[in-house]
């Protein structure tokens, strides 16, 4: 479904991502881990179009998407969340939800959009906050709103950058549950995390990056025994 081929990204003289290749199949739940500076967030930024790759290809549903602007990639069905929550602070929860829906090239009636927003907000249990300004929400609620907003895009692939960082354990569990559920509904996930424990239990497949290169690609269980992975983490 999504394929990355020989992806390279240089910042000045520093190579952040080096000849990275991997494939994501439909309805997969892929985790990407790696020590600080291993190129995880850069990879997500490259796929979502925030950064342009120095070389290499990104193919989504049979078409190259590298070089497309971020909004175009979003419209094609790749949604993302950010490491530091980026909600539209001075807009209400509902308005946050409407932005992706109205930006989408699909024609949907206002009624449909509204119903869908309501559904998603109920699903995430923040329906009661729908008229609040996003900036008045707690950090955890903002995180949930961000997830809800991505869902409004109706994306085929959802990329999440550190969804579990710095949140209450209870909420962590909650988000964990939501991801599972959305995955069951057939969505594809790419999740970056520092939180090894959560990602090991959540993901079906794990990619480990170190120094911008892929050093492991396989089951989560296998990663724990892989020498290079252990070395990368211990060597830090």
């Amino acid at each position, binding site marked *: 479904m999504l394929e990355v081929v020989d992806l390279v990204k240089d910042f000045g003289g520093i190579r952040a991502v080096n000849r990275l290749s991997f494939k994501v199949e439909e309805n997969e739940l892929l985790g990407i881990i790696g020590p600080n500076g291993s190129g995880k967030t850069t990879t997500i930024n490259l796929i*979502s*179009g*925030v950064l342009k790759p120095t070389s290499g290809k990104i193919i989504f549903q049979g078409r190259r998407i590298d070089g497309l*602007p*971020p*909004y*175009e990639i*979003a*419209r094609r069905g790749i*949604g*993302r969340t*950010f490491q530091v929550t*980026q*909600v*539209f*602070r*001075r*807009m*209400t929860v*509902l*308005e946050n939800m*409407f*932005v*992706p*829906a*109205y*930006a*989408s090239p*699909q*024609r*949907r*009636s*206002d*009624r449909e*959009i*509204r119903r869908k927003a309501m559904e998603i907000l109920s699903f995430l249990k923040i329906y009661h906050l729908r*008229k609040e*300004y996003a900036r*008045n929400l707690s950090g955890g609620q903002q995180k949930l709103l961000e997830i809800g*907003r*991505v869902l*409004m*895009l109706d994306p085929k692939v959802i990329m999440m950058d550190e969804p579990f960082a710095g949140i209450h354990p209870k909420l962590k569990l909650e988000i964990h549950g939501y991801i599972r559920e959305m995955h069951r509904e057939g969505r594809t996930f790419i999740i970056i995390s520092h939180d090894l424990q959560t990602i090991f239990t959540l993901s079906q497949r794990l990619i480990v990056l170190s120094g911008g290169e892929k050093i492991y690609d396989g089951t989560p269980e296998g990663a724990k025994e892989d020498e290079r992975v252990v070395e990368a983490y211990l060597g830090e």
Partner: protein
Amino acid sequence: MSEKGIRKVNLAALMVIGALALAVPFILHSYWLHVAIIGLYYALLASSWTLLAGYTGQFSFATMALAGISAYTSALLVIKASFPIWGGFLCGIAAAAFVGLLIGMLVLRLSGPYLALFTIAFSEITRITLNAEYRLTRGDMGLTVPYLFGGIENKIPYYYTILGILAASLTLMWLLLRSKYGLFFRSIREDEQAAAAMGVNIVRYKIMAFVVSSAFAGVAGGFFAHYVGTLTPNSIMELPRMGLIIAMAVIGGIESLAGAVSGALVVQFLQEYLRAIGMWRFVIFGLALILILRFSQNGLIWPLYQRLAGRRVEAKTEPELELPESPEPGVSPGGGGA
């Protein structure tokens, strides 16, 4: 108070203000009518600036320069090419919108202080050029422009014209801002990166905001040219005048059209009313600007009204995107994903 109640209060207030506005020529005479006309002209400029700065987050200092471009385009076409005034007026608006388009395209990569610096530079270049090319523009000697209604003996037609223009412009801006485009503008203001990640074509909508705002600045400029009758570059586009417009919008409330309009009218009337204290009134406005920014970043007049009207300030600084909750087929103005 319920939302419906609020809407009633707002509607009532709007009707009272509308009735008052229509009655002004019967209450005020010549000079104060002139003050009112200029106040409405500033209100249009302040709201066009708010559309760009307050809603879309693009802090441009070029509003007055664009008004000036429109004013000079219209005036010169009427004088040198014998266009009818309405023809010059429309061309002026088109010119402002076109220059707005160019600026919008040029400044895509610039944000925050860079955009402010670029637009200051643009304004200065425009002003200096209009002064330097005095053979065409007559620079500071003043370009004599035909009046909209032949003369200025009777100011009432001018008053109703600018009132009508302002009402129409505000309605258009309001419709735009409460449609999906307004949603996109605000999402760009809040977080460009996130807006792009949500599928918003930020390039297109940023440019659109520049074009729309410039066009309205152009409307104001065109009216001004054919109202004052004598144009000089300094009387439209010197930097302190841009500062006045910004002060008006900030004092009124930078994030709403109503705030910008009320700020413009209040400051304009105070400016006339406090004439006796001379330069000190500008010192007071400067101080007010600083204090309001420091202690009430969302402005003074509009939030105050909102508090009086009984709704929480937070919930009203933005026009809400109202969509029908019932299954009846409703259309949101201008929206609908088309």
